[in-house]
């Protein structure tokens, strides 16, 4: 590993000013699971490293009815996965954590680090995008809040400005009659990178059974994790018949632009977007229709992931 100068700022303000001062020569260290690999492989060559884990108040994991769930920048997957409130109210969030790495990686890595590194194959991100998560960003000119997908600029690139630090993810409490699922497709069930990841969140009108909201987020099949908005438009307002699901699946496949690599050819990924969008949406629909409780949904999600 190439040497660097190391800082442990105690405040966001100090961390931010270090990032401004050293610009492109500086890197944030959070969970470190991407950082260590990329620095070791000389893919990143930071001269200055700013560890944000010693900043107080960044590791929060809180829930309230009004504010929903707040996941702090340095809260690890392991903590989120094990948290009883998350399990009870945001089952898909703890299930999506299980899709990431193995136990040891989850005790280090963070949702926010995963999002900021903007890998199109990031396993925790499609769920967040499909759930309509927002991120709060601290910066030299004050704080701002944006939808999480607006963080992604391209493969490995985010939209943060100099001195900006993402401090938390914000998730609203989902409405009743909502089903969630994340399906990860990869050669190995654990410790592997997704070939395709599909998160589907479906909300039904309990009176007529029609879909009132649909959010589908795709991973590993474009330069960023993104929402399949054409597929969503087909589902929204419709009765979710087999025909409607199939049309949405085809639309999602059309919206994807995967590359081929050692894990899978591009054509295969595109086909699998269709297959998995249909499957994920059918699961989410069934969950929403049956009024399945969050824990049960979580158990199914984990079973599909592992």
């Amino acid at each position, binding site marked *: 590993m190439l040497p*660097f100068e*190391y800082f442990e700022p105690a405040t966001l303000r100090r961390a931010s000013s270090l990032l401004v001062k050293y610009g492109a020569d500086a890197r944030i260290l959070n969970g470190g699971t991407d950082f*260590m690999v990329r620095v070791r492989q000389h893919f990143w060559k930071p001269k200055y490293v700013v*560890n944000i884990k010693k900043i107080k108040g960044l590791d929060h994991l809180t829930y309230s009815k009004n504010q929903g769930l707040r996941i702090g920048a340095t809260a690890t997957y392991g903590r989120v996965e094990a948290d009883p409130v998350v399990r009870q109210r945001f089952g898909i969030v703890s299930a999506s954590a299980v899709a990431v790495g193995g136990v*040891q990686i989850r005790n280090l890595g963070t949702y926010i680090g995963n999002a900021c590194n903007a890998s199109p194959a990031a396993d925790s991100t499609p769920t967040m995008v499909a759930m309509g998560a927002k991120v709060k960003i601290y910066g030299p000119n004050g704080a701002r809040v944006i939808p999480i997908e607006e963080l992604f600029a391209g493969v490995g690139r985010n939209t943060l400005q100099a001195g900006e630090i993402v401090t938390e993810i914000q998730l609203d409490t989902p409405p009743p009659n909502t089903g969630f699922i994340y399906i990860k497709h990869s050669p190995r069930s*654990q410790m592997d990178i997704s070939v395709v990841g599909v998160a589907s969140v479906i909300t039904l009108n309990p009176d007529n059974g029609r879909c009132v909201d649909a959010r589908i987020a795709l991973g590993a099949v474009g330069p960023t994790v993104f929402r399949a908005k054409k597929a969503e438009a087909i589902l929204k307002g419709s009765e979710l018949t087999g025909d409607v699901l199939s049309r949405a699946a085809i639309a999602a496949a059309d919206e994807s632009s995967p590359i081929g690599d050692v894990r899978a050819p591009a054509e295969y990924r595109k086909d699998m977007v269709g297959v998995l969008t249909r499957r994920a949406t059918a699961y989410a629909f069934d969950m929403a229709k049956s009024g399945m409780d969050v824990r049960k949904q979580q158990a199914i999600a984990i079973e599909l992931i592992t």
Partner: protein
Amino acid sequence: MKKNFIILNVNEEERELYVYPHRSLLDTVRDELQLTGSKKGCDEGDCGACTMFLDGNPVTSCMVLAVDAAGRRITTIEGLSNGTKLSPVQQAFVEHGAVQCGFCIPGLIMSGTALLTRNPNPTEEEIRMAISGNICRCTGYTKVVEAIQAAAASYSR
């Protein structure tokens, strides 16, 4: 480039040392503290041979900077036994012959121990999930799973 002074709390002992900020916890523990039970397999967080506990949670120590681990509670495989008396998981690995070349074993024992500390009655599926971040290249995990199952008895008692 200058070294940083840090205090590492390893196996309930405080160790003072000077390290370069870019040194990993794994390299530091192995090379500076001469605790070589934790192994360096892939050095990129995939194989789990370097598993240690940080504040009680298993982590791949190749993915942690030594400077970042300062002030936290570190447990290595050497910290599990009491002198020559092996821990229940270690003993079970011996009794079940859950070892071939042995390189992955310290990491597997750490993962098994972490699981049983939280969940003294795991199912086979839960054991397999708990060791999914540990790779053995000799062959099979069957005896490893059996050993952890057997060790569970002494945790749930």
